[in-house]
């Protein structure tokens, strides 16, 4: 008879691995089943052209809790950084750059008033993100006041906010539901500065600077910086796959088993309990608990038979917003790119093309109607500038997030992708003249490609849109906010859970905690 596991984790994304490590460290048997041949999900390094390796999806590490990295000894398991505390450089066609670092903003376009405002803005946002820390890290409280524990959790949260003092509390309550466009207008003059700041809040989502809740996603980002142990924005050595590699090491060391090339086709339910899984090979594996790292839509609309789910639940899952808007561009260049206003020594920075908030909105608009932007906004890294192992000698790789690319499942998908790659290269050419001529290989992954390659419904950065109505006790839906599904023994541990996406492992860690608490 086949071995029975206490836990099966569906998906070896970084959250699945974190969850598996947590369970294994608590002495439980765990089997991770990953569909892809390679582990790590959207936190993976791969070769896209001979000798050219990039972080295939996520490329910058900035939100992982320092204590998690220590707990799982990620350093001991091989995680190192090629760059830390990277500067953010906002590019311009004229070559006038703005450099953001810590609480300073520098550049010709930054007035004295703006520089002072940036320091103040930073201080304010740090304060608010800190007050909301449990909101961004802990298991979501239940929206219920039936038990004392529930009441205390909600009360505690209220108290933290209250402790900001009357002035700051009011300010937080004023801005929390606001859009970033208006907020940044209150602080700053410089168009370019506002564009650069806004990008932090907008990457990955189907929302723009003017969208409600963009202040919340900005604070979400700031909270990540606060907990990451001072690495700021970092490039893992060897690409994002190194994070997953270290997590694999931690999980295996604790006794977890990991299988790749094992696609789960069904979550088995017996007597209203998760009983195991079935693989595409037909193999059946039994477990007391099944924890899904796959996104909620895939988990509940594809892997669980609808016979076991209630209509209202299914309706909510189906209505989840999960249309990805971030594409990924990978280039192999014959030499170092020459961005206007950036020295070669500055290539280790995080480069932003977002001339202003209006330009961001203009790039967002067409994507709402499944069209491609004419002047895309980008977050660019040249990882080979800090990590020579990624590209052949003398050559460079570029890894860029192209924001506001529609999920395109039209018959013209291939032609559209090819045409849009030209648009993106044209845009780059404006900021880095000559870059087109340097391209040896290029790859553009649209949200649809990301869905295919990484198994994420809609190819969404956060699995499920990170918006107010899908946050905290509503993430992804109220019935799943504490990781536990209505079916006993079935849990969710991926980015679709509270608190959301990014490479940080929080959802995985919290899910493990819930599984352990839930008992078997």
């Amino acid at each position, binding site marked *: 008879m086949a071995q029975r596991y206490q836990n099966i984790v569906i998906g070896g994304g970084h959250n699945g691995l974190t969850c598996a490590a947590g369970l294994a460290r608590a002495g439980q048997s765990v089997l991770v089943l990953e569909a892809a041949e390679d582990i790590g999900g959207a936190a993976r390094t791969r070769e896209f052209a001979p000798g050219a390796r990039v972080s295939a999806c996520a490329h910058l590490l900035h939100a992982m809790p320092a204590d998690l990295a220590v707990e799982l000894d990620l350093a001991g398991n091989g995680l190192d950084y090629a760059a830390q505390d990277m500067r953010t450089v906002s590019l311009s066609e004229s070559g006038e750059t703005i450099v953001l670092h810590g609480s300073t903003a520098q550049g010709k376009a930054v007035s004295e008033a703006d520089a002072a405002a940036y320091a103040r803005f930073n201080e304010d946002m740090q304060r608010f993100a800190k007050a909301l820390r449990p909101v961004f890290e802990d298991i979501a409280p239940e929206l219920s006041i039936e038990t004392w524990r529930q009441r205390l959790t909600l009360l505690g949260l209220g108290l933290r906010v209250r402790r900001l003092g009357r002035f700051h509390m009011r300010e937080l309550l004023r801005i929390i539901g606001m859009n970033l466009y208006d907020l940044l207008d209150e602080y700053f003059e410089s168009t370019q500065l506002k564009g650069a700041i806004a990008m932090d809040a907008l990457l990955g989502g189907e929302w723009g600077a003017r969208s409600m809740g963009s202040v919340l996603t900005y604070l979400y980002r700031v909270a990540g910086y606060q907990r990451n142990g001072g690495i700021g924005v970092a490039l893992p050595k060897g690409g994002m796959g190194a994070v997953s590699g270290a997590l694999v090491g931690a999980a295996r060391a604790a006794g977890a088993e990991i299988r790749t090339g094992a696609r789960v086709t069904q979550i088995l339910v017996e007597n209203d309990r998760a009983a195991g899984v079935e693989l595409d090979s037909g193999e059946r594996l039994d477990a007391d608990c099944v924890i899904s790292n796959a996104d909620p839509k895939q988990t509940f609309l594809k892997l669980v038979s609808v016979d076991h789910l*209630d*209509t209202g*639940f299914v309706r909510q899952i189906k209505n989840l917003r999960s249309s990805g808007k971030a594409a990924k561009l990978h280039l192999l260049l014959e030499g170092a790119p020459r961005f206007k206003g950036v020295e070669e020594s500055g290539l280790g920075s995080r480069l932003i093309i977002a001339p202003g908030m209006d330009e961001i909105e203009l790039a967002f608009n067409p994507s709402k109607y499944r069209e491609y932007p004419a002047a895309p906004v980008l977050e660019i890294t040249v990882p080979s500038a800090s990590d020579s192992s990624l590209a052949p000698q003398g050559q460079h790789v570029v890894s860029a997030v192209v924001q506001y690319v529609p999920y395109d499942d039209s018959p013209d998908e291939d032609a559209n992708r090819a045409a849009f790659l030209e648009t993106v290269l044209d845009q780059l050419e404006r900021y880095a003249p000559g870059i087109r001529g340097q391209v040896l290989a290029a790859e553009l992954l649209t949200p649809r490609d990301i869905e295919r390659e990484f198994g994420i419904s809609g190819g969404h950065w956060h699995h499920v849109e990170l918006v107010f109505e899908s946050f905290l006790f509503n993430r992804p839906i109220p019935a799943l906010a504490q990781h536990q599904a209505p079916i006993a023994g079935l849990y969710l541990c991926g980015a679709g859970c509270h608190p959301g996406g990014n490479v940080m492992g929080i959802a995985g860690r919290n899910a493990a905690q819930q599984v352990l608490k839930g008992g078997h």
Partner: protein
Amino acid sequence: MIADTQNNQRPLTERPILETPFFESYKHLIQNDRYQEWSGYTTLESFACEGQEYFAVRNTCGVYDLCPMIKYDISGPDAERYMNRLVTRDVRKVVPKRVAYSLWCDDNGHVIEDGTVFRFSANQFRLCCAERQIDWLMDSAIGYDVAISDVTEDIAGLAVQGPISCTILKKMGFAGIEALKPFQLQHFSLDGCEVMVSRTGFTGDLGYELWIGAERAKKLWESLFAAGQPYGIRMIGSTALDMLRIEAGLMQVGDEFMSCLQTVRLGRDRTPFELGLDWLVDLEKGHFNGRRALLAARTKGLKRKLVGLDIDWNKQADGALIYSSEDAKRQIGEVTSALWSPTLKQNIALAFIDAPWFEGEQEMWAEIYLHRECMWERKMFRCRVTRKPFYSPERRTLTPPNDM
């Protein structure tokens, strides 16, 4: 997935309140213009005298126009799984040619509505209910290979109820109808056109429901009334039907409970257990909508329950509040439907009563307001929990029924 009928595609402005396919046939019987709108149709509270209409069903035969009942046809390879997940009963046990009264709940185990499930074959069902449910039915279809169509306007229905109903249907030429058992259905031919007959009804009496393509409605009505005329067959309206269903102890959406999809106030939703319909809930059949919530509710115990009341004296207790003592200090429930029962000569009511009073062991009082010669008087009457159905004659289930 939804095949709309032609009527639904006409712009709303062109379809004011509809007349049922039988309306032309019985129009000449309407004597008092007491109309009522029901799901978009003109229906009648009574044709002439509700007392006579009531007694027609208890003594001879009364006919009620069922056309406004909402009817959904559900078919496809997954139809059985779909239905079994939708309703609280085990649909697998409802064999083809049977009908099952059932409930369906939301995720919280609160009742959306009750209705009848007709099973025509392995993969074909019809759901009949009083209110429109298409959005819930369509959402419930996510993940199933089923087709759902609203056939409300395509199918005309008549309830033929009362001790002589079987005799009349036999006269109409429905040979062998006497063999039809309660909740069975059978197809008959009427001048070469198919009529489906189910032994179902809402009166607690012997009775049948006849279903036919809307375009043949007139023919059906004429044959029925020609055959029934010597027996005093008569059309009945909703007032008489309401009296009949209260005697039969049958609840009605909108009176005993609100659909949980429509409530806005906290605590207005009802579980099947609160409605006293435990027997309709099969917690052992596997998962269905609301099952987990219902399991939890069962462990928690009941706070209130729908019961039958017998109230002293003869003043109908409409809307009466129920108290634990004559001084009306503590309210323990309220009446949802009340009737001075003409057959039982008893003052009966359906009422929601709190625990533990619904067990029927403690004293209870009904507060009844009487309007007498333009003045209100408030009276307290003793009442007690009594068996439901209040009235259930043997002929209701007797097969074959007595030939009259």
